């Protein structure tokens, strides 16, 4: 959250130059760093394996076999039957890790789509319509920015109980204020541009101006922010699932795998290590991508 605040300022400043030619030129010159290519290959591998998990011939991620409890991974006394070992109920860790990837990454993506849409619409409206609408939306943004979302989530979970619809709603509501703030600032700026003034004097409707003129010119920074927000949502889902309040068993998510495994940390550390490490690597890869995208889409930002 903290980091997005300055990122936000950078993103707004970056959008100051609408010169499309300059941006294209910059894109052509930028070479992708080797580390980033590695990160993308890893991300691609995780996603492809996660999608293919049901057809890889791995054991059922929910199948318990108590005779196989806490089997160590390959290289530490384990066998090919369970390459990453098993958890405290004898469930295959590799298969759970991949099935969990589908759940964790899927929920985070869904959350990003919802909050991006919600925040962008509200932010564009606030910036373009100004006045009372702007004040109401800005106040809501301020409030959500100042209250830690995890606490709001706990309240909602107490009132409505745990469950997938509540979880999705929470993920979608978390972070909308980031997009709204950015979209508001961008549309405030864009509504002063000559092409918008021209469109308005031609009698083009507000919806059409927002959709055809302002949104395309504000889309790049918003998408960069969405990349950076993805990991926040991944964290939120994992934290809630870790606490036992998010994704409910038997569905695996990286968070509830960690929550399950932590009671067996001493005798089966691998059950914590693998989901923890995957979560870390995916987070780093996505964050690095977001930082890189921000630099690439924003040639005016001087490099620090």
């Amino acid at each position, binding site marked *: 959250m*903290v980091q997005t605040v300055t990122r936000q300022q950078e993103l707004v400043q970056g959008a100051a130059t609408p010169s499309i030619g300059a941006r294209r030129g910059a894109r052509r010159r930028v070479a992708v760093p080797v580390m980033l290519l590695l990160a993308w290959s890893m991300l691609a591998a995780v996603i492809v394996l996660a999608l293919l998990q049901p057809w890889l011939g791995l054991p059922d991620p929910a199948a318990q076999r108590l005779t196989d409890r806490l089997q160590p991974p390959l290289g530490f006394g384990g066998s090919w039957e369970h390459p990453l070992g098993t958890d405290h109920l004898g469930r295959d860790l590799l298969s759970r890790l991949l099935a969990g990837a589908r759940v964790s990454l899927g929920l985070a993506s869904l959350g990003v789509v919802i909050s991006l849409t919600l925040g962008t619409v509200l932010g564009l409206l606030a910036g373009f319509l100004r006045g009372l609408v702007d004040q109401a939306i800005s106040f809501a943004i301020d*409030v959500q920015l100042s*209250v830690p*979302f995890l606490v709001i989530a*706990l309240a909602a979970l*107490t009132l409505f109980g745990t469950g997938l619809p509540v979880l999705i709603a929470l993920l979608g509501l978390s972070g909308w204020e980031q997009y709204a703030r950015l979209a508001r600032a961008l549309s405030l700026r864009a509504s002063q541009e000559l092409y918008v003034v021209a469109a308005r004097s031609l009698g083009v409707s507000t919806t059409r101006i927002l959709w055809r003129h302002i949104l395309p010119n504000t889309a790049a920074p918003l998408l960069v922010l969405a990349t950076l927000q993805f990991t926040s949502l991944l964290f939120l889902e994992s934290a809630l699932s*870790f*606490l036992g*309040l998010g994704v409910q068993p038997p569905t695996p998510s990286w968070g509830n795998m960690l929550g399950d495994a*932590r009671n067996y940390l001493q005798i089966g550390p691998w059950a914590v290590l693998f989901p923890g490490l995957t979560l870390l690597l995916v987070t780093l890869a996505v964050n690095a991508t977001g930082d890189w995208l921000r630099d690439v889409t924003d040639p005016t930002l001087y490099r620090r």
Partner: protein
Amino acid sequence: MARYVLARLLRALGTMWLAVTLIFVGLRLSGDPAAALLGPEADPEAIEALRHAWGLDQPLPVQYARYVSNLMQGDFGRSLREQRPVTDVVHERLPATALLAAAALALAVVIGIPAGVIAALHRGTLLDRSVMLGAMLGQGLPNFVLGLALILVFSFHLGWLPSGGLQGTRSLILPALTLSTYGIASLARFTRSAVLEVMGQDYLRTARAKGLPTSQILIHHLGRNAALTLVTVLGLQLSVAIAGAVVTETVFAWPGMGRLLTQATELRDFPVVQYGIVLVVLSVVGVNFVVDLLYGLIDPRIRLQA
């Protein structure tokens, strides 16, 4: 300045009011608490009696007014599980959380700010890169993963530190480290870019040109100008620390408010969660208010603008 303070105060009160109102709306949206408490097979008359006792048969505006006035008088109800006033239940847990948060914040300031200054002064060197790499790792590591890793290494493998609970100073080390890592990392990043930004200014070049020693420049020229960014970040850190405390306390079985809130959520003990939220919002709003005042003090341009 008076107008500035008043505007900020109104904003703080508005935030509190909105939070309380949203809780009320959520409470009413979530169904009939009387029916939920007595179960599906309860006598309709008993439900009606309970609804009457709780004032649920009154019109919504009346309920709302009564709800707000109860909260204003400090009446937050009783814990459903412990059958004691929630204020007692929560207040018992406050010292442990305060201790943990203070230790984490202190660590973040003591490690994060110098790390950022050093990185900025040695921009582009190996030192700078390692600090920034560390900061990236620190921000990318979920604190429950970090906490478990620390327990694994320092408690189980090396046996140096306790793996949980609150007994003595030694038990504070791992939780405080876990909670502060994100803060250290973001403070280091922020300090670095704040210092770099100030270093690009003309007045700093002048200070250097007239031969001031680096320490003088750091304190008098950099310090004051970078302070504004840092105050903001520190204010935001509180919010991050509260969210982090919920998870960290659970990892380390820390007898604080975060763990209490998690347990209360699991048991759907709403009065406890509600009071916890009110306290959290109160502290966050209070800190933001103070941050705004500091803003006005550090930079007169801001208070004149408002």
